[in-house]
């Protein structure tokens, strides 16, 4: 952070931490957030700042003939109007494939693509100036069907090299195997939004060294810095980033939004520039979850043993690649679910179209196939006359089992146990006995039914998700831990670049430092690029990798301290430990206060944590000794009531069993499972970005619906801890699995209640009330 930090960038987090690992101390940001005092990126302020705005394409696909900025620039109060020719460095960025222009040059590939920037003395001045930028478009016919984009060679190529971002086959055993019982289906999933509440925002401050200090909300400071520096034509050290308050992320902040734009305007005008998207712009300004079309065929013996799974998956990546390659990787490698299957053939396609770009969202690439493979397992159970849970348990993957890529799981995989546990959780009461509270019925207080036409159904879903980066990425995080005496008390300062996006990472870091160093005050230093990379708060990975890095740095600090005391006392270092602010010997008891050992010193150590190496997939067969470092599993049971006359659904209860390896903070684990389940419920019954002709038709929270507290039922949550011997403290990623297994469970319950096939998710009234072809 620079010496002249803008107003509302420090957060003033509480540095007293009341519990160590395995306890549930209060969050240091919790009281601030519930009191409305936590500063989000949209609260950033500098006295002499300008406001930036982005002109976006109104067309999904068009050629740009010309751009006239003259009238806009002449607007009083306007300081800058910039186009592609003003991009100082490389006018391309991207997380995996560098294919997206900072500002469009001669073509726009999606509705909402950035074309020009304005800086002005007031946001309204900037907006009016944008209306005076004259862009002459030649409108082209957009490509909107990803399956066509994969196979129709007559379509225009949206990018050099064609419209296929990634094509990945996975083959195991005999890809042509046959079986006695065969079920097949075609399943589709709509586009889901991350629906974070805090819109994209940041404040760029030009620095005297020709660089820029950017304060912003993001998931990954160093990834942003790398891409931004490249586009600005600056060395990375001249692009310094500091985290501001993040109002939710869920993957939607992995790609760049305001970063380069805001910095360009600040560098160009020499003034601080703030950008904040409004809600509509936010819908156009971040990626969404990939819609998918999935063809599945399962073959089994008459006893219910899976013989083969064959599938073809199409993921609509939209106009730019973003995380599409990873979605294809995850979607294919996890495409059969948490089951042991001897013969597999999966083909995954990630495509360019002129639809809105799709990228990271909680459950990345694993959400889509889960809807298909779990529907297939129910179909198979039905064909076999078996119980749906029994079929799943019979085929469940377990420790020592092999994935379709040939990876042997050398850690617990309690899939069968989770299924068995979730079905044993208590069920809700039936409605029959007493008149129901209308709020518990489909439609709720809308007064649509008093119980007539209402049918109950129960459904199950279980999933597999890889944790951390995969397929050969060097996945690591960095932590700097400093121990010193402040006011006579030891204070640890933990400095990482790891983003607190609401998941509770700040608390977990405090807990680790408290446990490892035996101190009760742990300050979380603001996240910035002065410390090494932490990677993204995604892939359920931060407690694993940043937790590991904080642990390593704490151990290094502790080693320094203990060596010092061992040398002074003559005790063996192996007998020493830190507890309650004191150095304790197992042989002779308390040896010294930390305050006396440290004095005026500052003990500071920086360490990285790298997880075990992973390896790429074979391009033809998808094989890999270890494609993914860890897998996580959760199982849901949904109980729904469906008003079959009106097609309305009330999820009555949603229960979950999940293996978390080690619950670092049990209350936070419950919170993650509740939140993930709510997001999965939303996808099951209401969340869909309506894209028509390449354009979003519901870019607001009035029209894009997410569940409210009235839609979210009570949950029974059953957390088990089967430690992963390879991970710090045995942790297993928590955040994503409940988002994945909840959706198929809810959809299965609606199928059970209605007998409808329900091949599209989210399920809407029209799918239940009448057979409207989709």
């Amino acid at each position, binding site marked *: 952070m620079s010496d002249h930090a803008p107003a509302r960038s420090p957060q003033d987090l509480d540095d007293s931490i009341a519990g160590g690992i395995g306890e549930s101390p209060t969050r240091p940001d919790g009281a601030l957030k519930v009191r409305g005092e936590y500063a989000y990126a949209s609260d950033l302020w500098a006295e002499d700042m300008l406001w930036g705005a982005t002109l976006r394409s109104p067309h999904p696909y068009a050629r740009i003939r010309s751009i006239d900025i003259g009238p806009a620039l002449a607007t009083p109060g306007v300081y800058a109007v910039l186009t592609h020719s003003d991009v100082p460095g490389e006018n391309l960025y991207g997380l995996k494939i560098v294919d997206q222009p900072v500002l469009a040059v001669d073509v726009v590939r999606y509705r909402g693509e950035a074309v020009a920037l304005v800086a002005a003395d007031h946001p309204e001045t900037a907006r009016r100036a944008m209306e005076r930028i004259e862009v002459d478009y030649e409108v082209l016919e957009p490509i909107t069907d990803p399956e066509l984009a994969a196979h129709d060679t007559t379509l225009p190529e949206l990018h050099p090299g064609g419209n296929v971002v990634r094509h990945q086959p996975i083959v195991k055993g005999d890809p042509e195997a046959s079986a006695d019982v065969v079920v097949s289906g075609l399943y589709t999933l709509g586009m889901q939004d991350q629906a974070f509440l805090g819109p994209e925002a940041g404040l760029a401050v030009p620095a005297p060294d020709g660089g820029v200090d950017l304060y912003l909300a993001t998931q990954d400071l160093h990834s942003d810095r790398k891409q931004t520096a490249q586009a600005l034509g600056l060395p990375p050290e001249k692009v310094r980033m500091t985290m501001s308050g993040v109002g939710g992320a869920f993957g939607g902040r992995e790609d760049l939004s305001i970063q380069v734009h805001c910095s360009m305007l600040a560098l160009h005008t020499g003034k601080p520039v703030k950008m904040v998207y409004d809600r509509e712009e936010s819908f156009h300004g971040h990626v969404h979850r990939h819609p998918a079309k999935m063809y599945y065929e399962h073959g089994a013996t008459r006893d219910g043993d899976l013989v083969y799974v064959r599938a073809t998956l199409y993921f609509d990546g939209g106009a730019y690649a973003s995380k599409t390659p990873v979605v294809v990787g995850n979607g294919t490698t996890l495409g059969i679910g948490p089951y042991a299957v001897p013969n597999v053939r999966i083909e995954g396609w990630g495509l360019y179209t002129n639809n809105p770009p799709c990228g990271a969202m909680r459950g990345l690439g694993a959400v889509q196939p889960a809807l298909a493979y779990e529907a297939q397992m129910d179909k198979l159970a039905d064909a076999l006359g078996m119980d749906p849970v029994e079929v799943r348990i019979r085929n469940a993957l377990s420790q020592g089992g092999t994935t379709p890529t040939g990876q042997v799981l050398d850690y617990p995989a309690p899939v069968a146990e989770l299924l068995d546990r979730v079905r044993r959780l208590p069920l809700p009461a039936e409605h029959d006995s007493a008149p129901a509270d209308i709020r518990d019925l489909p439609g709720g207080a*809308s007064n649509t039914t008093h119980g007539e036409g209402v049918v109950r159904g129960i459904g199950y879903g279980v999933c597999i998700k890889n944790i951390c980066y995969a397929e050969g990425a060097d996945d690591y995080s960095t932590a700097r831990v400093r121990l010193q005496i402040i006011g006579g008390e030891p204070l640890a300062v933990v400095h990482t670049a790891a983003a607190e996006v609401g998941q509770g990472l700040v608390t977990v870091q405090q807990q680790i430092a408290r446990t490892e160093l035996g101190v009760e005050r742990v300050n979380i230093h603001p996240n910035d690029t002065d410390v090494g990379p932490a990677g993204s708060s995604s892939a359920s990975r931060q407690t694993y990798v940043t937790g590991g890095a904080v642990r390593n740095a704490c151990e290094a600090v502790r080693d320094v301290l203990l060596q010092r005391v061992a040398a002074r006392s003559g005790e063996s270092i192996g007998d020493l430990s830190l507890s309650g602010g004191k150095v304790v010997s197992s042989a002779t008891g308390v040896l010294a206060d930390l305050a006396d050992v440290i004095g005026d010193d500052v003990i500071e150590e920086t360490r990285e944590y790298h997880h075990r190496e992973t390896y790429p997939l074979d391009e033809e067969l998808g094989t890999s000794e270890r494609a993914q470092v860890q897998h996580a599993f959760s199982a849901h049971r949904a109980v729904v009531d469906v008003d079959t006359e009106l097609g309305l659904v009330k999820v009555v209860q949603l229960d979950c069993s999940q293996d978390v390896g080690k619950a670092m903070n049990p209350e936070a684990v419950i919170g993650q499972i509740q939140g993930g389940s709510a997001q999965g419920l939303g996808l099951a019954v209401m969340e869909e970005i309506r894209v028509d002709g390449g354009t979003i038709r519901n870019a607001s929270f*009035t029209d894009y619906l997410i569940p409210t507290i009235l839609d979210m039922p009570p949950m029974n949550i059953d957390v088990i801890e089967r430690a992963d011997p390879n991970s710090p403290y045995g942790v297993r990623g928590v955040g994503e699995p409940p988002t994945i297994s909840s959706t198929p469970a809810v959809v299965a319950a609606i199928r059970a209640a209605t007998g409808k096939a329900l091949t599209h998710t989210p399920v*809407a009234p029209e799918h239940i*009330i009448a057979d*409207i072809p989709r």
Partner: protein
Amino acid sequence: MIPFDYQRADRADGAVAAVGVRPAAAFLGGGTNLVDHLKLGVAEPELLVDVTRLPFDGIDTLPDGGVRVGATVRNSDLAAEAIVRQRYPVLSQALLSGASGQLRNLATTGGNLLQRTRCPYFQDVTTPCNKREPGQGCSARGGYTRYHAILGASEHCVATHPSDMAVALTALDATVHVTGPNGQRDIPVTELHRLPGDEPHRDTVLEHGDLITAVDLPELPMAARSRYRKVRDRASYAFALVSVAAALDVEDGTVREARIALGGVAHKPWRANTAEQALRGAPATEQSFREAAEAELAEAQPVRDNAFKVPMARNTLVATLRDLAGEEAR
């Protein structure tokens, strides 16, 4: 948003004069719809005359037994009024099913009647729309039409009226009091809103400068047992896919009188005259209700994405009538 002037009116005649003389002037009530449209560029008034301080915030019993609701009465207050809850429960229920608590605290009675459609093409100024700009063409036809009309649409417009309150008022045969540049007049609420025809830019029969001052609810004993049912995609804070406002008067198992309006199906709150006619004198049975509903919907013309609204409207209407008849029987 374009720059605009703002005035706060303290007299109705002054407000009417101020708006009447400027073609690009508009009244501002609670602002829950107009302010959105200002931001989206859908509405570009040069002058806003704030009418929320006019003395139209009363709810009064009339000598003839009806109730007069002032135009600036907030939706929350109207829904909570004891006389409304007792004598016109359909209105209270309709209000409470609309929007959110925060929006209902702002929204006014007059403003609610004048809400404009949530058709996504109307709200997106980059797409053609006959309602926004006559003659441009209708982008919804052939586009995303899940929320659109199944009754009374025209080739020029297939939008729906979004209000819940107006559906209840339509079933109740309310009367709208208007004062305008040419004096005062009363308009039956059933005639306030228009079908799109070839003038889809006109939502209502009001002329520029006309100000709604009050809404009268007629004395209607059968309305004491009235219902509003709203079918929507989540349990709160969502617009209606289909809604039904209904009151039923049944004696000895025979329907004497029915009042029915449908929401979410047309450019205006849809008074179900055909169904009412079919029910009068008919036995109060599931079969009569179904026949009446089907008669009302016989002319329905769904577009690409809303065929489901026909069975949904039918089933909602039947369920509402069944509910009301069952209550009568008790």
